[in-house]
Structures are given as C-alpha cells and as structure tokens.
C-alpha cells in the first residue's frame, strides 16, 4: 500500500514527519526512511463544517494519529463517532484535487 514516508534519525532514533534537514533533537543529518505501521491511535481531531475552497464536501473529520511505531501524522478520519485514543487503521486515498489532479493522502478507519 502507498503511504507517507517518515524519517528516523540514524544518530538518536527520533522519528519525524514531515521531513527536516536536521534532526529536531540532535541536529543529525542522516535519516532512515520508514513507513508508518498499519495501526495507530487518535491523538486529537476536529470536525470541519466549513471547508476551504477546493474541497467539495459538507463535512470532513481530520485528526492526528500516532502510529504504533511512533510516526505521527494528520489524516482524514472516517469514523462515525471519533473518540480520543480510539484505534485506527491507515488507508491511502485521494484527499484533494489540486490543479485538476488527484492528490493522495492518509485516511483512517476504526479497527474492527
């Protein structure tokens, strides 16, 4: 499955997403590219009722998820009743159309 690329500092092990040229902890410049694990938990979320120009939806839930391997990332939350701490499974789908092209990103569904 396609997904984001996160970065693990080769010197101190800090996991970062998005990309930095220097480690946020030790200033290291070498990183191992890692993929987020399959599942994570919801750290915070919002239900957006007033979406920006370019997103033709009435409502969208966005949230920050911490994956089991420590990667943290924002994504679209596809849960009926989002709750802090809930377990989610990551997916990859078009999240926005920019300049006529579909842009893919993270989506999350509750684990069964």
């Amino acid at each position, binding site marked *: 499955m396609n997904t*984001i690329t996160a970065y693990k500092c080769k010197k101190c092990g800090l996991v970062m997403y998005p990309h930095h040229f220097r480690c946020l902890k030790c200033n290291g410049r070498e990183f191992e590219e890692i993929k987020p694990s399959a599942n994570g938990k919801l*750290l915070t979320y919002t239900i*957006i009722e007033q979406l920006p*120009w*370019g997103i033709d939806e009435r409502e969208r839930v966005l949230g920050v998820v911490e994956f089991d391997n420590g990667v943290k990332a924002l994504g679209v939350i596809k849960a009926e009743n989002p709750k802090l701490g809930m377990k989610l499974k990551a997916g990859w789908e078009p999240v926005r159309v920019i300049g006529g092209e579909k842009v893919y990103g993270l989506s999350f569904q509750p684990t069964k």
Partner: protein
Amino acid sequence: MRPVVIAGVGMIPFERRDEDSLVDMLAMAGLKAMDDANLGDRPVDAVYVGNMASGLFNHQVSVASALVDRLNLMPAAADRIENGPASGGSAVKNGFLAVASGYCDIVLVVGGEKMREVIGPKATDIVACMTHPNAEYIYGVTLPALAGMFTRLYMEKYGVTREHLTMVAVKNQENGLLNPYAHIQMKITMEGVLTHPQAHVNSPVVADPIHLYDCCPVSDGAAAVLLTTEDIANELKRPIVTIAGVGQATDTHTLQERSDPTDLKAVTIASQKAFSMSGIKPKDIDVAELHDAFTILEIAESEHAGFFSKGQGAKALAAGETQIGGKLPINPSGGLKARGHPVGATGVAQVVELVWQLRGEAGKRQVKGAVNGFSLNFGGFGNNVIAFVLRSKS
C-alpha cells in the same frame, strides 16, 4: 541600543472596505500615524509594511514600493515583511531594530490586509497556505481546524469549557462596542451562543469544538506606527511611549511534532524575552492585547505569557479579572474577535491600541492609569510569535 519611541499611531476602521485598495488603506493609516506624530515635511528613512498575502488576495506584490510612491516618501528604504499572521509584529520589530541600532532615525511601519476581495472559502484557503503543504494542506486543514484540534486537547487537559470560550467572545464583543475602529459592533450573550433554541443557528460549528463565535471575522484594514528616537519625539512634542521590550520565538511547523501540543513554547519564550529586555514583570502590566484569533488562544496565551499559571487563565476570565476594570484587562480593543483580523494589520493594530491606552486616549474603553502594556502577535499556529512590552514615560 538606543530607546525607541512610538511618536505617532493611526489606523482606519476595520471592516469590509470594497472602495479602497490595499495600498489605499496602507496609505490612509500611514498618513494618520505621520500626522499624529506631527511629522510635517520631515523625511522618513525607512518604511516597513507588514502584509501576508497581497499576491494571493489582491494580485499585487511589492506593496511597500507602491506605498512610498503614494505617500511621496521617496527615496525612503521600503520593505514588505511577510511573516504569516505575525507579519505586523515582524514589521514593528524590524522598525524597532532600525531605530534602536542607529541606522534610521524615523521609520514608518504599516500593517494591512485586504481579504474581502475574495469569497469566504477562498480566503480560508489562502490563509491555509501557511500550513505544511504535504503534511497538512492537502487534507483540507484550515486555521479553525488547527484551532479545533488544539482546543479539544486544551479543554481535556485544563478543564476549559465552552462556557469559558464563550466568555472570551462575549467580553471582547462588548469591548468592541466601545471601539469605533472595531469591525464587529454587536453585543452577544452567553444564552444566545450556548443555550437558546437558536444557538446552533447563531453560532454554528466551524471546526468542532470551535463555533462561529469562537473565531475572529475576516476583515479589511490597516494600522500604522511612527517610530523614532526620544530626542526627535521631544522635538515633535509627542508623549513618550517607548518599546521597552521585544521578544520573538518559533516552534515546529506542524502541531503534531510538538511533544505536548498544548504547550505553546514560542509564546512562553517570546514573552519571557520581551519581559526580560524591558525589566518589567507580568504583574506590572496594566493592559494586554493578545492574539485571540480563536477564543481558546486568549486563555492559552494569558497563561503562556506568564500572567496566570497553566489552567488558571479560564478561572481568571470567569472571575472578571480580564475585563476593563479588572486586575488585568485583556483586549480592551475587542481583540481580533471584535476589532477584526486583517492579517498583516493585526500586530501593528495591537501596538496602536496599547499606545492609545498608555497615553490615556482610549476613550470609553480606557484602562485607568495604564503605564505598562503588553501585546502578543501569534503567527501560524504558534510557530512564530512576537511579543512587545510598551511603557509610558509621561
């Protein structure tokens, strides 16, 4: 560094201004500050313009060059300063540095934004361009959405309630009624926002848990200050209000990379720097203008800046301590909530309000006997923050 005096201030009412271009607005505010300083025909050495997105909102760039032409300030140096929602604060800071260093004697700082040239969802999208392009923007994140995620965590951690958030809105809109420059001139009540059968119509959800009345309006406007030395301010016969302290700090671009996303480190550090430079302590501040783009921010900033300990800001608010007449009046101008938030203008408008307060010229919203003032301009979602401490010498 030599002392820097704010010898003149001016602003135009924030509102929807269809008739005026961005540069018209900058020029009108700039002229008011020059006249307020009794500047006459004296030359200005440099002009700094705080503006976030004239290219996107108005299809015009190089607005600082356009402004010196409109005001006949050539051959003054001119720069546009873009630093997101902290553009105004950055422009004031750069003006301060120019005078403090001795490189310039007279500097005009103008902040402005014309946002209502585009429709609401487009303005939301333009403002969202400050978010991370791959990790945030593509998902449709908006500034209210970031504020929503932050508010949820802050409520959870510190017991802040929707009642507290609404108290900020009610207080600041009440203050706005006393400020002829404020965009929103409307009294609201706790009942109308929270419990009335029509509450969900009055204040619908924007980005849960954030409702409409938790957000500042989208406004057009400009504000200006004229900075100079103490000697020149005395020659101009203007009251002496000095910039006693300036602090600025940054934080990670995305909220998710902060180890504690409720900890606004840049607010704490910028405020500490400004206080330490000024020698003035938070308890000595008589009036504060905080960046309440969202109601939660007034509460969180009042704590991170050092006025209240963590978790106590909402209690101080509920006890009336932050009202005009309270122990520490916050946002007597109405704040961003009522005055409006033409992005690049805000950091300058906060300083303008403090100068009026410290000179005793704030009319019906005057904080009695105010000598020391504090302002905080919050960029991004707390990733670039500028604080000022102002002191009246008269």
